C-alpha cells in the first residue's frame, strides 16, 4: 500500500494497573515524584529466595471495574489487571463496555485486541505438592498414579484454563465485545511493544478501525522468581529494595520484577474524528527485528537493537535528529544497559548528547510482557506535559555508559516525538515511535 493510502493512527485512551497505582494519574504522580514500587514480596513467601522483594500491584479490587465480576473473578492475576486497565482506557476513549448495544459509534467487527500477555501462574501449592505426593523415593521416579490421584482431587478446571496465555485477551474480548482481529503474543520482555506495533500496522492497513492494545503479565510466583534467580537476572539487593533498580549505574546488579497491565486504545484518525474523541498522540513508526544470535545473550554489537531502531525511524520517515526522548528498555542488568547504550550511540551518533533517555523501570520495576505498554504510556504523558520521566537511583554512573539518562528527577522539556524500545529474552527487538498530534 502506498504511504498516502495508509491510515493515520492515533491514541485515544490509556489505562494502567501497575505497582505505582491503579490509574494513569496515580502512575504519573508516582513517576514525577520519583516513587519506587518496590518492597518485600508478599504474593508468596520468598523469605529464603535469593531475591526477597519485587514490585507488586497492591490492594487491587476488580469489582471497581466491572458490573459482572463473576465473569472475570476466576481469571489469573494479570487477566484481572487487564480488566482494570481496559476500563480506564475505554472510558477515556468513550468506548462502551459490558453492553450488547454499544452507542460509541464503533462496529464491533472493526474493533480488535492485541495483547502481549503472559501465561498464568500455576497453582503453586497444588503443583508442588502433586510432585511431592507422586514422587517414589524407592525408585527415584514419578509414580504417575499417585500424581494423578492428588492432581485430579485438587486441581480446579477453571483455574487450569486460566493459566493459558490467551486468557487475558479472552477476558478483554468478553468485557468489550471486540470481534475484529484478536491476537495475543508473548515475546518475553518485548511483548507489549510488539503488540502495540502490530496493532498499529493492522489499523494503518485498514484491517480494523480500533485496536485495544497493550500488555498484562505477572511472573511474581514461586516458579517465575526461581527461574529468574537461577538466570541471575534479578537484583538481590534485599536490604534496600527501593534502590535496587538502578539502570545504567556501575553498581546495577539485575532487574526488579514487577507486574501489571497497561492498555492503549489505538484508532484510525478517521474513526477518532468521526467519534469526536480526544486525541492523545499519534503513532508514526514501528520496527521489529530479531538478533538471531544466542538465546542467552544479546548480540555484542547490538545488531538487532540497532536495526529495529533504524527500521522504526525509517517507517516514521524520521532521522536520528528528530527524536526528543527515548524510553529505554533499561532493565538494570549489566548486559542490557551496556548493549542498549551501545545501540543508541550507534544510531544517534553525534546526536546522542542531544537525546535524553531514561528508564522508568527504576521506579516501576520490570513488568515483563506488560513493560513496553506501560512505558509507552509514559511517553504519551511526557509529550502531553512537557516533562521527561527520570531514571532514579542514578548515583554512581557507569563510566562506560555516558548518555543523558535524565538522572534522579524529572526534567521539563519540549517533547514532540518519543521513542519506546523493548528487547526480549532470546533476541526480539521492538521499537514504537509516537508524536504529538497535529491535524
Amino acid at each position, binding site marked *: 500500500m502506498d504511504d498516502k493510502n495508509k491510515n493515520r493512527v492515533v491514541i485515544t485512551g490509556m489505562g494502567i494497573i501497575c505497582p505505582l497505582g491503579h490509574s494513569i494519574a496515580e502512575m504519573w504522580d508516582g513517576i514525577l515524584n520519583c516513587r519506587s514500587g518496590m518492597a518485600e514480596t508478599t504474593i*508468596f513467601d520468598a523469605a529464603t529466595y535469593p531475591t526477597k522483594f519485587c514490585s507488586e500491584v497492591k490492594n487491587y479490587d476488580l469489582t471497581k471495574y466491572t458490573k459482572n465480576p463473576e465473569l472475570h473473578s476466576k481469571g489469573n492475576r494479570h487477566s484481572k489487571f487487564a480488566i482494570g486497565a481496559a476500563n480506564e482506557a475505554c472510558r477515556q476513549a468513550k468506548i462502551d463496555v459490558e453492553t450488547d448495544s454499544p452507542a460509541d459509534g464503533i462496529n464491533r467487527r472493526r474493533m480488535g485486541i492485541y495483547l502481549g500477555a503472559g501465561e498464568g501462574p500455576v497453582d503453586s501449592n497444588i503443583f508442588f505438592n502433586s510432585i511431592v505426593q507422586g514422587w517414589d523415593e524407592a525408585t527415584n521416579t514419578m509414580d504417575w498414579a499417585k500424581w494423578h490421584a492428588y492432581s485430579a482431587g485438587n*486441581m480446579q478446571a477453571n483455574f487450569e484454563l486460566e493459566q493459558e496465555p490467551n486468557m487475558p485477551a479472552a477476558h478483554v474480548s468478553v468485557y468489550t465485545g471486540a470481534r475484529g482481529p*484478536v491476537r495475543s503474543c508473548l515475546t518475553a520482555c518485548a511483548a507489549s511493544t510488539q503488540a502495540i506495533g502490530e496493532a498499529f500496522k493492522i489499523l494503518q492497513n485498514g484491517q480494523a478501525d480500533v485496536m485495544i492494545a497493550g500488555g498484562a503479565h505477572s511472573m511474581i510466583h514461586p516458579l517465575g522468581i526461581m527461574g529468574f534467580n537461577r538466570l541471575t537476572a534479578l537484583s538481590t539487593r534485599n536490604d534496600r529494595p527501593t534502590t535496587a533498580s538502578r539502570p545504567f549505574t556501575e553498581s546495577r546488579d539485575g532487574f526488579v520484577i514487577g507486574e501489571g497491565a497497561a492498555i492503549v486504545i489505538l484508532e484510525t484518525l478517521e474513526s477518532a474524528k468521526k467519534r469526536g474523541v480526544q486525541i492523545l498522540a499519534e503513532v508514526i513508526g514501528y520496527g521489529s527485528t530479531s538478533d538471531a544470535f544466542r538465546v542467552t545473550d544479546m548480540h555484542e554489537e547490538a545488531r538487532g537493537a540497532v536495526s529495529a531502531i533504524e527500521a522504526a525511524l525509517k517507517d516514521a520517515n524520521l532521522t536520528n535528529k528528530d527524536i526528543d526522548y527515548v524510553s529505554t528498555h533499561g532493565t538494570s542488568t549489566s548486559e542490557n544497559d551496556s548493549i542498549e547504550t551501545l545501540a543508541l550511540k550507534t544510531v544517534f551518533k553525534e546526536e546522542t548528547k542531544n537525546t535524553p533517555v531514561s528508564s522508568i523501570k527504576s521506579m516501576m520495576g520490570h513488568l515483563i510482557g506488560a513493560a513496553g505498554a506501560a512505558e509507552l504510556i509514559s511517553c504519551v504523558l511526557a509529550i502531553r506535559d512537557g516533562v521527561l520521566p527520570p531514571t532514579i537511583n542514578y548515583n554512581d554512573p557507569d563510566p562506560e555508559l555516558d548518555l543523558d539518562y535524565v538522572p534522579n528527577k524529572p526534567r521539563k522539556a519540549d517533547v514532540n516525538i518519543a521513542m519506546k524500545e523493548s528487547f526480549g529474552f532470546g533476541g526480539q527487538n521492538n521499537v514504537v515511535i509516537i508524536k504529538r498530534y497535529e491535524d
Partner: protein
Amino acid sequence: MTVCITGLGAATCLGLSYKDLWAGLCSGKSGISRIGGFDPTSFKCQIAGQIPEFSIRDYVPKSIRKTTKLMSRDIEIAIIAANEAFKDADLKTKAFDEQNVTINPKRSAIILGANSISCDLLEIAPSIVKGVVDGKFNIHKWGTDSIETVTPLWLLKYLPNMLACHIGIIHDLQGPSNTITCAESAGLLAIGEAFQIIARGDAELALAGGGESKVNPIVHMRQSLLKRANDDCNDNPTEACRPFDQNANGCIFGEAAGCIVMEDSGRAKSRNAKVYATVAGFGESCSINANYQALEPDGKGVQYAIESALENAKIKPEQIDLVIPHGTAVVSDDIAEAAGIRNALGGWGEKVPVFPTKSMVSNTGSGAGAVDVVAACCAIKDGVIPAAKNCTAVHKDCKLNIVKEQIKKKINYVLCTTYTYGGQTAAIVVKSE
C-alpha cells in the same frame, strides 16, 4: 502484493515429514496410540498423537549442538518442521550452507504459534522433593536447599518465544520475530500475521507456522478436568477422535509442528521457486462466551473470521473447493463450528467438501492450524481431497458434507479455520497458483 507458499514442513504423529503427513491423511491412517512418555494407566484419556522417535542433534548444525540441552519438546519439533520447510523450498540458509546462503537474513521473518510449554515434571521433581518437611512441600526449605539444584537456564526451556528464537538462530532470520500465543488458533494466526508482514513489505520471506506438544501429564489432566478429552476409546486409539460424527465424544491431544515458507511473489518468481499455493485472504475474529472454554453456540466468531477471509480474498463462497475445519470432536464445539461455517458460506456451506484432520493427527494446539495449512497445500498440489476418518454418520446438528470417499479434482481454493478456548478465531483461504 501476492504472498506465495514455497516450502512445507511438518512433524506429526504420522511421521517426521510433511510427506508422511499427507500420505497418512490420504490413506486414512491414524497416528493416535497409547501414551509412551509416561504411564497413563490412571488417566481418563490414555492415548495421544505422538511424534515418532528422533534425535534433535540430527536437525541442528554442529556449531550450536550444545544448545540442544536448552530445548524442550515443543522447541525440538518446531525445529524439525522448520528445517524441512526450508529444504523443501530449496533455500540455503546458514544452517545448510554458510557460504552460499540464498535468503536475505535481514528481510526474513519468523512468526510462530506456540503455547506455554508444560514443564518436564521429571526434570524438576528431584529439586522439589528436596523442599519437603513432614511430607509436605515447604517453600522455606525449597528456597534454602533446593532452588540452587535447578539447572541455571531452566526458564529458557519454557518461554514460548524460544521456538522462534532457536529457529531464527539456526537459520539466521533477522527480520521480525513474533510468537502468537492464542492456544489452538495460534498456528493459523501466526501464518496470517506473516502474510500481512510480507504483504505490507516489512519482510520478503517468512517462516511461519506453529508447534506444541500436548503429550504430558499436566495437559492431559487439564483437558480431562475441562471435560474436553475423549475417554471411551483407550483400547481402540485409532477410532477415538471422531469429528462431526454422531458419536463424537471429545478430543484426543497430541503433538505436532507445521511450518511453511512464505515469500513475496516477486522473490519467488525471480528464483523460479515451486509454488504450492498463494494466500488469497486471511480473516480473524473472536468467539465471545462467558464459558471461556467453549465456542459460543451459534459459532459467530468462526463465521466472522470466514467472512473476513472471503472478503479479503475477494471471492464468493461457491468458489471454495474444500474446507479444512478445526473439528475437535468436542460435540458442542463441532456443532457451533459447523453453524459458523454454514452461516458464512450460505447454501454452499452444506455442500462444500469438509475434511477434518484431527481424527488422524489429533489436536495439537498451536501446531494444529499450521498442520492444516500444510495439508491444504498438498491437496492443491495433488488435486486430491482425502476421505475423512471416523465420521460414519454426520451429527444431525452439524449438517456438513464431510468427505466420505477420496475426491480427485482440480482444487482452486481451500479454506482452513481454527478456533480456541478463550475465543480467538482465524480463517485463511489458500489458492492454487
